[in-house]
């Protein structure tokens, strides 16, 4: 079983603070981490490898420093790391990103692709399903439990807005996973040694056999027109007084809004 895990290096938003005056993010000194959902994707792949045997390859697209994310995944137990990097990928939207990742995955013989549900910087949740479409394989989103894996198929539970579904698919398949699925392991000492020694394969557009006009900005249907800061909430009022007075005011607000 060969499993490819797509990961993304993102700024750790738990460490981000907001500048109260400008309403912008203070990003200074914010560490880069593996997107938290992707940690669960890595764990799922390692778990399947333990059950079924095989190999886990981690794949990312980003600047040269994204190599650190691949090494971290290897320290957890992944076998190989592949980095898509180069100017030709600049300005990629989700479609161009998915096309690039899928082109790289096509070069590998894979039985399964696992992604985190979404990345915490963009929150689009689009790259996983789009990669599946470009690979012409089925996908199952928001996987919260892996029930069964056979030679040609998989049975999983996917989280929905009002409960969950039991879904079956043929292999190869792409899964996007949620936090409930598992608890990501910590790197082992041996893993850390491997991560140091590991050779990260760096690929550009030509190596993945993708036409440059389908990559980066040229391959992106969507464009950012404008970025702006949301208007801050105005007219906050503090409700003061004794708890009884506070509750009285609160009740009035609830009645005004027809909640009671």
């Amino acid at each position, binding site marked *: 079983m060969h499993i490819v895990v797509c990961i993304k290096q993102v700024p750790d*938003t*738990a460490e981000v603070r*907001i500048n109260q005056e400008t*309403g*912008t993010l203070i990003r200074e000194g914010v560490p880069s981490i593996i997107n938290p959902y992707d940690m669960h994707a890595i764990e799922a792949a390692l778990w399947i490898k333990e059950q079924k045997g095989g190999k886990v390859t981690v794949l990312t697209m980003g600047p040269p420093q994204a190599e650190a994310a691949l090494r971290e995944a290897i320290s957890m137990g992944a076998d190989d790391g592949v980095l898509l990097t180069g100017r030709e990928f*600049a*300005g990629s939207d989700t*479609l161009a990103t*998915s096309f690039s990742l899928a082109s790289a995955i096509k070069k590998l013989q894979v039985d399964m692709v696992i992604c985190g549900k979404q990345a*915490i*910087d*963009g929150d*689009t*949740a*689009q*790259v*996983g*399903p789009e990669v*599946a*479409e*470009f690979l012409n*394989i089925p*996908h199952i*989103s*928001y996987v919260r439990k892996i029930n069964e894996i056979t030679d040609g198929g998989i049975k999983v539970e996917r*989280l*929905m*807005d*009002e*409960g969950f579904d*039991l*879904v*079956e*698919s*043929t292999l190869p*398949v792409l899964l996007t996973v*949620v936090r409930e699925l598992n608890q990501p392991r910590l790197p082992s000492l041996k893993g850390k040694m491997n991560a140091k020694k590991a050779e990260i394969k760096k690929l550009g557009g030509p190596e993945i056999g993708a036409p440059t*006009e389908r990559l980066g900005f*040229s*391959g992106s249907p*969507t*464009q*950012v*027109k*404008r*970025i702006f800061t*949301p208007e801050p*909430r105005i007219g*906050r*009022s*503090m409700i*003061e007084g004794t*708890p009884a007075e506070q*509750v009285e005011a*609160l009740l009035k*607000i*609830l009645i005004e*809004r027809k*909640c*009671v």
Partner: protein
Amino acid sequence: MPVKIDRDKCSGCESCLAVCPYESIVMKEGKAFINEFCQMCKTCLEVCPEGAIKEIIETKPSGVAMDNLDDYKGVWIFAEQRDGIVAPVANELLGAGRRLAGRLQVELSAVLFGADAAQAEELIKWGADKVYFCESELFKKFNDEPYSNLLSKLIDTYKPEVVLAGATAIGRSFLPRVAARLRSGLTADCTSLDVEDDSRNLVQTRPAYGGNIMASILCPRTRPQMATVRPKVMKKGEYDPARKGEVIRVDADGIPCRTKVLEAHRETSGHKVNLQEADVIVSGGRGLKSAEGFKLLHELASLINGAVGSSRAAVDEGWIPYSHQVGQTGKTVCPKLYIACGISGAVQHLVGMQSSDTIIAINKNPEAPIFNVASYGLIGDLHEIVPLLIKKIKEHKEK
């Protein structure tokens, strides 16, 4: 258009580093340098005091541009159903779609899979001119492949210029497949939609970077322009029982399918968990101190017909299941009323709830960041305030 920095002009002042929302500008040998994370948002262009940042005109051909944009006409909304009933978000999409269709002077159509004909008629009363409708068994339960196959096929045949769907579990799972198949753009989780008059481009605005910035996205070179729209943001269409429209039946012949939905389990517990559609959410954090604390919130929520949410801290403590978590790694919600009890307001929580209409924050710590996004703030002990509030609401109801 790509953006470049003239290294001779760059003074190394780093003003562009501070404004780049994608952290794509780095310092190299004392000069600013744009790396591959650049999204071409052009925010840095305006701030450079040296005028060293320039937009360069792209000469490379685009691999996605279409030359028949004018063939695409009309606004479509995908009306998702759950257990045969059209979800409320569909009516919101009809409201937003009607407005866009008016601006573009085109028809508004809905697409409905797997429900019965009565539901299709309802969509007309909610504002659709046409409903493309497939009653097939194959669509009763949500399944990505048949859904994306049939929707792509319909779009290919009828060529709408705009396609909207709810940013729900269903919409967010299969719309990306449709976008990839049609090689067009999809913008996730939009909170506002507008039209550029001359180009007919859809201006799709969404929170990005954890909700701390907003990005307006265009899809100028391809059609259809697709967007998923956050539930509870758009106003519902006007219901008119006398409205007439056309129901066009489509069949699902030859739709291959490699996935199968074996069972669908719906949450049946008394507590409302569908946070994204709740009008009122009562949410708790570390300040609740225990799983026991959530009983209070459940009681309050049931009195005001609300759902119970939580911060990540409370989930990590094991006081409440993950399905209740609001925030960046949980659910994004925007109810009419959000009551935050004992939640300090870490960025990761705020981005998931700060667009709620009204936010009431109860917290002991006057410095808690939650007060920065609150409409009403109460400094005090929730274990005192909430029980008293429950008592008062009960008294009020008895009156």
